[in-house]
């Protein structure tokens, strides 16, 4: 059970035990009386919907927040981490979803930042640092050049470098906050190998993830939070998918309920939006695409296949350098978000924090922003109207916020996403472009957003949805465009549209001269 170096004082005591943890922000309880325990050589998955309190709990354990009440014991001894550095020196290291390293420094410098080895004269000992870095990375099966800039490596490698640094600094507990959010399957497997190795070495590992498959693949035990309270902590062997989802949502959820809705719905014949030979050099090859009224068209493809580029081009966030756009039988020019909004287009970008929310402004201001921008600065929305709009969407989309005037940065990811959707729905759009609308949000919010997409389609909106959740995509889309290598390589509809067909289309070799294939079942 214990690792290579069993700690002296602590036989019997769990590696880390936190009891009665409570924390409130601005009077809103984020955590109430939560107990959590981590054993040596164990991978504990911390699960819960957005806003359940996972991040708050992790930030308390790693010293980023101070707790309001409760106690933490490490190897039986009470600790009170006052800062992230403090927690690190106690033995608790963290790797966040967005890698907190410096891409413009070398791998070795990142590993030893702030503690670079020095020569006897006090100068930095670059050679020793490189040697140490190479040895350290070898333990994780990475044979990369420690002198190269970190930014030149993939996110997966950066993640492992971050883990190597955290483990080297701390060495008892490693917290991984959504480590696989931006990794593909192979990279995830690579990361999990590292996690298993650390587990064998006796580390206690806490992993936060939204991917249930990965929970079953890697975790030994699952701790579930809901609304800031502990729901329970169970060995993975005692759980199946349904019981786990039930714990997280607190209600029975029929797992595979996504019926075909989009493909069966009658789609009006004449398209609302038609792209003809639309493209941008170096970004996406020219493509033709029609989207009918009340139709959802899905876009599938691997990361970097041109999915996001297509969405941005359609909204005018990037300028097309070829082709025409026809909206409602009229050729229009959409060269900027302003011109797109004027045509009744709307766009929820993939990077919610960078491109979506205006963090310091209130939920109300975030919701009315696009509408206000369209009206122009000279025609302010009266305050009463702003409040009415904000309250209407907070209620309609069930945006969980303590108050409409709370800065949006205090909301959880799923609620921020709903607020961005509200921002666009308030402009009463006719064409809505969604880039990964359900990415990084929890199961419950997932289901709500899908329901919303179907509602909007039923109300006659045209939607273009980029998603890597293929099961969902085929459920609500009437057609799926498949992208690979910045080209539209296939368009699937009807019975031919299913996840395995999409994956086959992505995987098929693409001759550059060959036109996009259309596969429509009779």
């Amino acid at each position, binding site marked *: 059970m214990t690792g290579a170096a069993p700690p002296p004082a602590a036989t019997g005591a769990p590696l880390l035990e936190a009891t009665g943890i*409570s924390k409130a922000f601005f009077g809103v*309880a984020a955590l109430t009386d939560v107990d959590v325990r981590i054993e040596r050589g164990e991978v504990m998955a911390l699960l819960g919907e957005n806003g359940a309190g996972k991040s708050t709990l992790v930030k308390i354990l790693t010293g980023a927040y101070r707790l*309001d009440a409760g106690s933490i014991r490490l190897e039986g001894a009470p600790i009170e981490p006052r800062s992230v550095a403090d927690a690190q020196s106690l033995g608790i290291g963290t790797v966040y979803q967005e890698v907190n390293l410096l891409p413009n420094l070398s791998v070795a410098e990142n590993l030893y930042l702030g503690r670079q080895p020095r020569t006897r004269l006090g100068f930095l000992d670059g050679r020793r640092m490189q040697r140490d870095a190479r040895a350290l990375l070898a333990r994780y099966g990475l044979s990369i050049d420690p002198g190269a800039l970190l930014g030149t490596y993939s996110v997966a490698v950066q993640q492992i470098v971050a883990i190597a640094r955290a483990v080297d600094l701390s060495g008892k507990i490693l917290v991984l906050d959504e480590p696989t959010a931006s990794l593909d399957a192979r990279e995830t497997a690579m990361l999990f190998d590292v996690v298993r190795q650390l587990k064998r070495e006796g580390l206690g590992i806490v992993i936060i993830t939204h991917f249930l498959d990965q929970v079953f693949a890697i975790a030994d035990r699952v701790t579930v939070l809901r609304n800031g309270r502990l729901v329970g902590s169970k060995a993975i062997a005692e759980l199946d998918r349904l019981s786990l989802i039930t714990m997280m949502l607190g209600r029975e959820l029929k797992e595979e309920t996504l019926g075909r809705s989009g493909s069966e719905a009658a789609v009006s014949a004449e398209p609302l939006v038609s792209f003809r030979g639309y493209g941008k050099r170096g970004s996406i090859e020219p493509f033709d695409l029609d989207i009918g009224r009340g139709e959802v068209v899905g876009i599938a493809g691997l990361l970097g296949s041109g999915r996001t580029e297509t969405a941005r081009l359609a*909204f005018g966030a990037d300028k097309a350098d070829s082709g025409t756009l026809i909206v409602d039988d009229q050729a229009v020019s959409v060269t900027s978000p302003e011109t797109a909004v004027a045509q009744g287009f709307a766009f929820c*970008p993939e990077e919610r924090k960078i491109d979506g929310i205006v963090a310091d*402004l209130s939920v109300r201001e975030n919701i009315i922003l696009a509408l*206000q*921008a369209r009206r122009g600065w000279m*025609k302010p929305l009266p305050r009463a109207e702003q409040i009415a709009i904000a309250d209407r969407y907070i209620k309609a989309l069930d945006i969980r916020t303590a108050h409409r005037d709370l800065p949006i940065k205090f909301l959880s990811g799923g609620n921020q996403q709903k607020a961005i959707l509200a921002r666009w729905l308030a402009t009463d759009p006719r064409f809505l472009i969604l880039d990964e609308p359900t990415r990084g949000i929890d199961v419950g919010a997932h289901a709500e957003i899908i329901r919303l997409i179907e509602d909007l389609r039923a109300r006659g909106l045209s939607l273009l949805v980029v998603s890597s959740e293929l099961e969902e995509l085929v459920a609500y889309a009437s057609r799926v465009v498949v992208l690979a290598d910045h080209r539209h390589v296939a368009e699937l509809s009807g019975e031919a549209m299913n996840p395995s067909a999409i994956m086959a289309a992505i995987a098929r070799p693409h001759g550059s001269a060959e036109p996009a294939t259309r596969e429509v079942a009779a």
Partner: protein
Amino acid sequence: MPDMILARLKRLAPQLIALALVLAANGLVSPNFFDLTWANGRLYGSLIDVLNRGAPVALLAIGMTLVIATKGIDLSVGATMAICGAVAASLVAEGQPLAVALVAALGVGLLCGLWNGFLVAILQLQPIVATLILMVAGRGIAQLVTEGVILTFNDPGFAFLGSGNLLGLPTPVILWLAVALIVGVIVRRSALGLLVEAIGVNRRASALAGVKTRFLVISVYLVSGLCAAVAGLIVTADIRGADANNAGLWLELDAILAVVVGGTSLLGGRFSILASLIGAMIIQSINTGILLAGFPPEFNLIIKAGIIVAILALQSPALGSLWAFLRPAPRSPTPAAPDKKELVAR
């Protein structure tokens, strides 16, 4: 509605307290600091002097607040003051009508703002670099206009802007109050304020939401240039001459300081013009107080710096959390969890 007034007072509290403390200190070093007398159709007194002498920085602070709210900065306002003063003085000296001179000076101020806005919004230069260009070149331009001399004039109408009285107050006071009122009303009665804040917090997200970021960024530099033009007219009118080398010298720094003392973050976002104006008055009160106290002049800048460090320290987040820590038992405002108190007391 009373809630909103209360919220605004809470936002302004640090600035108002700092102003009160500085004024109280002035009252200690100069017992007749608060005396006001009426003579020659206007009020006289140290307080009026603070309002009057603080006019240039107050005017600059109005534009600077908007620029800083977009996450920008305008280092060129001091030089813009010199250019606009020189333009007005040279036209008046040539015998042009005063109205022509004033309109020309304001137009040149707008032109300076347009130049900065072009560099920042269209060429996407960093604001500090973009406005540094005019800060350096502007003095040269002003010298070209004055042809290297201190250009004096004798036009009572123009001089009135600097040393006349209006409604019982010195003209500069009325001018900065009027500009502040106009800009403040336009910004807060329209959606300009919200959109400017949105750009300052997240320009990419704002642009994707359809906000005309270029137009708005250019606009704030235009306002800044216009405010600098008015400030330049006041200092030129005050000395009845355009001094290309010294008009508005280093005032951009005082204006930035006024905005910072007013609590608007240099990272952009939420702003308050009123708070920046209070900041400008704090700075001027310190200047006046040091003069009245009769310290040797070589101490002035050091004392000023010390007081400003103290004010900024009072506003700092680090001190804020220390303050929260020192307060007895942090209790949750929701009455839902009274049972937690003994745990907290620990």
